[in-house]
């Protein structure tokens, strides 16, 4: 049975980027005819996106046999990613939610394999392949710090969730929530996926599902990324031995950065350290089902020191 899906698009990009992506998506959903819903998030503080969508994709002309709906959710200007996504998921009409980047071009039949993957209760999120020869980021522990290694994307379980294209259950997403500590950027979804993985759940890349995400849509701000990586580490790291190794590495990096005038490194560290009160509140209480090292790429190999 085909299950309807709410597709959430955070439409922060240009209309030129959004329009072809939306046209491809609506065409696919019309063909699917499952009663899906598309939710456009507008954080410009105006109703411009809603007006544009109504004018560019008018219901009668576009959806003669339509069984999908296009809606716009106008949020206050400057709304963060976490708040916007939370609002959108709360608004979602269907039990399955597909988070989608505005520049993402879907391909025929991309959604059905993802829905099928979510029928396994252990699967927390199902994602498609983003492009041919896709490079995925996988977490590993290197010299007392969390390192993001680029590896070839493969079907099956993986370590870091991306909000650019993933199918999750609405109620589960609302229950777990999104941690505003990690916005803006990639780490918001990585934290969400990691929390699920700590509980023994799986993030799955599905072989039969493919979309196209232009490389330009994946650019990240280095300072934001460094700050969020530190916060992620501090939120999820467990085991005193790993912590001592990490704190030693931080001290070493700070002194070296001071000696060599590497200000960006110090700014990123200071930005993260300013979030300590929020981090303390954000750290999960109680023991996780799986330890930090066990969730790294290659499992606990090379982390013998962890208790």
């Amino acid at each position, binding site marked *: 049975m085909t299950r309807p899906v709410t597709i959430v698009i955070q439409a922060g990009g240009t209309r030129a980027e959004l329009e072809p992506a939306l046209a491809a998506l609506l065409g696919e959903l019309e063909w699917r005819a499952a009663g899906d819903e598309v939710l456009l998030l507008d954080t410009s503080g105006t109703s411009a996106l809603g007006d544009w969508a109504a004018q560019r994709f008018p*219901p009668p002309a576009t959806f003669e046999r339509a069984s999908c*709906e296009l809606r716009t959710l106008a949020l206050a200007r400057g709304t963060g990613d976490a708040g916007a996504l939370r609002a959108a998921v709360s608004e979602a009409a269907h039990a399955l939610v597909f988070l989608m980047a505005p520049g993402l071009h879907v391909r025929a039949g991309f959604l059905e394999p993802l829905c099928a993957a979510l029928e396994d209760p252990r699967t927390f999120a199902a994602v498609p392949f983003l492009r041919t020869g896709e490079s995925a980021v996988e977490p590993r522990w290197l010299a007392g710090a969390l390192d993001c290694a680029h590896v070839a994307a493969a079907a099956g379980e993986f370590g870091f969730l991306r909000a650019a294209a993933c199918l999750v259950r609405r109620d589960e997403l609302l229950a777990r929530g999104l941690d505003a500590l990690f916005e803006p950027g990639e780490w918001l979804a990585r934290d969400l996926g990691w929390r699920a993985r700590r509980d023994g759940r799986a993030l799955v890349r599905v072989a039969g599902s493919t979309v196209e995400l232009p490389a330009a849509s994946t650019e990240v701000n280095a300072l934001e990324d460094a700050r969020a990586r530190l916060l992620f580490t501090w939120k999820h790291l467990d085991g005193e031995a790993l912590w001592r190794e990490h*704190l030693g590495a931080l001290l*070493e990096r700070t002194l070296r950065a001071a000696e060599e*005038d590497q*200000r960006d490194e110090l700014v990123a560290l200071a930005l993260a*350290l*300013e979030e300590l009160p929020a981090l*303390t509140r954000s750290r999960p209480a109680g023991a996780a089902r799986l330890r930090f090292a066990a969730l790294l790429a290659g499992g606990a190999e090379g982390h013998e020191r962890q208790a």
Partner: protein
Amino acid sequence: MTSTRTVDPALPPDFAVRVQRLEALETRALAARCLAGIGELSEVILGPRARHAELLLEMLLARARPELVEAQRAELLAARREIAEQGAALAAHERAQRAAAERELALQREVEELRRAQEAVAERAAALPEERAALELGRAALEQIERELATLRSERDWRAAEMRAAASALEGLRFRLLAPELHERVQRWKAGAP
């Protein structure tokens, strides 16, 4: 069908403003803030501040101090120099060893050649009595041949003399037969008669 709804979630802090504020700090002040922050983080995670102090002390002690670095650098330079000198001496020694080895090889070749020459002489010496015997035999054979040849020659000379005598006799006989008067005149002439 399209519809629009407005919600007002909490606004996130302005990231750019925070970055600008931190970037305005001097590097040392920024680093000091980071060190203090790491202390707080350590306290939050590991507990009493003493653990952070202990960690900091461990790390600082592990770091190389400038005077130690300078001393180690000087030591390293001296060691490198010594290694270079030893390397040069070793290279010279190796060259000498190589030359000695080449000389030894040449001498070995020379000794080998002499040995071969000696063997050749010994072989020749061993073969000499046989050669001498063969030579004696040859010489005896030669003498025999010479003797036989001399006999043959003398026989030939005798036969030639015989033949000449026979030819003269034959000539005289022919002369007497063909011109007897002339023979008489010759006899007379020989006898001194006119």
